[in-house]
């Protein structure tokens, strides 16, 4: 589409000719500028995390470009210190928190979305509209009462507590995305499965779940990153138990304790970013779909 637009612009004899050359450069320069503003902050973080403590404090990270191949200036010291100082354990804990907090809501929501799409029951439409309304409810509404329940049942600070909380908070969005997707699947397939005598349970596992993989993946990626990057829920339900700390809490603590020790902070921040960045670069298509579908989440 952009091809045809530029073709027309560059046709000889068009009155736009002279100006479109300038315009084209204007476009490129503006984009390069915006892209630079978007990259430089992360680049500065990455570079600083590999510099010696003394260097980070003494000169700006951009000075490395005067001698980029002087390998004596690069070091992994900050990473070693950060990882052995709690970030390493927090990293494992983050995985323990994020994987079930992704899989459990996907599974529960898939069953519910199936029922909303292919089964008839009393109150179906009303219930779904209720789910749509819940999409925008701020999850702060849940914290005070949930905290009390967790304290009463001695669940506060456990992984189970955060899994369940994230499952609840992610549920409306998961149901919404998956129902919309299942609603677009051809109805005939279900009908023919029914005629063949398949039960709903079989149809769900053998037909609908495999066919819904794009939507399942999109939501799963959104939810995984959401949980991985979450600070608030972790602070409220997990922070009381230091053994179960996660990367975001750990980074926030470092920021509080070592506010100006940038060699440590940059390394720690980069550790928290590794998993999301791997997801970004390896699953970009699903990633974009997931984040754009999921961004209404409360």
């Amino acid at each position, binding site marked *: 589409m952009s091809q045809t637009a530029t073709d027309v612009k560059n046709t000889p004899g068009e009155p736009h000719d002279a100006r479109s050359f300038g315009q084209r450069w204007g476009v490129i320069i503006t984009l390069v500028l*915006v892209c630079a503003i*978007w990259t430089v902050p992360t680049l500065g973080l990455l570079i600083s995390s590999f510099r010696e403590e003394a260097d980070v404090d003494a000169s700006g990270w951009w000075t490395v470009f005067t001698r980029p191949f002087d390998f004596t200036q690069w070091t992994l010291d900050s990473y070693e210190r950060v990882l052995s100082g709690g970030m390493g354990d927090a990293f494992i804990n983050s*995985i323990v928190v994020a994987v079930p907090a992704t899989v459990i809501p996907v599974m529960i929501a898939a*069953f519910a979305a199936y029922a909303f799409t292919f089964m008839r029951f009393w109150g179906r439409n009303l219930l779904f509209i209720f789910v749509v309304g819940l999409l925008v409810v701020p999850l*702060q509404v849940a914290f005070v009462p949930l905290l009390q329940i967790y304290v009463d049942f001695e669940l506060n600070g456990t992984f189970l507590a955060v899994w369940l909380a994230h499952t609840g908070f992610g549920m409306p969005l998961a149901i919404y995305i998956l129902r919309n997707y299942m609603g677009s699947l051809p109805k005939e397939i279900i009908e023919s499965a029914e005629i063949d005598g398949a039960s709903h349970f079989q149809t769900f596992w053998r037909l609908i779940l495999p066919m819904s993989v794009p939507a399942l993946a999109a939501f799963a990626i959104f939810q995984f990153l959401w949980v991985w*990057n979450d600070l608030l829920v972790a602070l409220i339900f997990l922070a009381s138990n230091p053994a179960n700390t996660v990367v975001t809490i750990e980074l926030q603590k470092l920021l509080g304790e070592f506010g100006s020790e940038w060699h440590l902070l940059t390394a720690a921040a980069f550790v928290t970013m590794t998993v999301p960045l791997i997801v970004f670069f390896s699953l970009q298509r699903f990633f974009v779909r997931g984040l754009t579908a999921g961004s209404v989440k409360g």
Partner: protein
Amino acid sequence: MIDILNAVIAILLGVGGVTLLYFALNAVVERLPRRWEARLKPFVFIGPAVLVVGLFLVYPAVQTVVYSFANDDSTSWVGLDNYTALFSDPGFRSALLNNVLWIVIVPTLSVVIGLLVAVLADKLSRGENVAKSVIFLPMAISFVGAATIWGFIYDANLRGGEQIGLLNALVVGLGFDPVVWLQQSQWALNDLLLMVIMVWLQAGFAMVLLSAAIKNVPDETVEAARIDGATEMKIFFQIVVPQIWASVLVVFTTILILVMKIFDIVYVMTNGAFDTEVVANTFFKQLFEFGNNGRAAAVVVILMIAVIPLMVYQVRRYRLEEAGR
């Protein structure tokens, strides 16, 4: 090693438990007489979801409203005291005002920048995807991570020696004194610098949705205007923008909903000091610093009331979409 083993066990238990639950429920229902099976089957599928939503969203929401009329440890009723206390507290009023600034400025800037990149990248013959990836990448980064990244940019060194924060290095390079950016509350400068972080994170989302909308604008409408001799500016504002307006609104409200509850960035960067307080951070402080359940609940109820118009909008939009199917 033991840690990793425990982690794997924890993950398997969590995931396996849920799978088993469905198989067990299904097995029970399939043993029932046919008529009952058909009647109960939908509730096997939907039951756990309803239970989870009820227990973790609906019940706590109702309970929060109740608590907002009770005292700090929810043992006696105080009527509207929590609300009157909040609204007569200048700190809370300034938090409300700041939230208004956030929900006006951040969605607007995100949409403008997202639209700019979407439009310009669309005109490139090469490199469109690279430019878009670069803008979208921050979406992967947590608020705390982004706060660290930008905290480093805003760093101020007052002990003498070189500035290692990029912004102050520029300022000093231009011959001025270094500035402690996050303490500059006149003209809400520090607020704006915090908002920059959010815009940096969210512009990519705006760009992706708006880029898709722009590519859906029929070529003929643009070509016709071009043949009539309209300038590119005119084409954009009079032909393209009206056709993508629905998407602009969706993006704007989506970011607005997110920004209303902005917490992490403020909590990590200033914790509300220097006039940067926001509502969600007040909630956190009331709950954990002051241990006041009633006050915290009242803050959330105010937030919930503010969300209601958006909820109505969301439901209405969904119904229109359904009707259009």
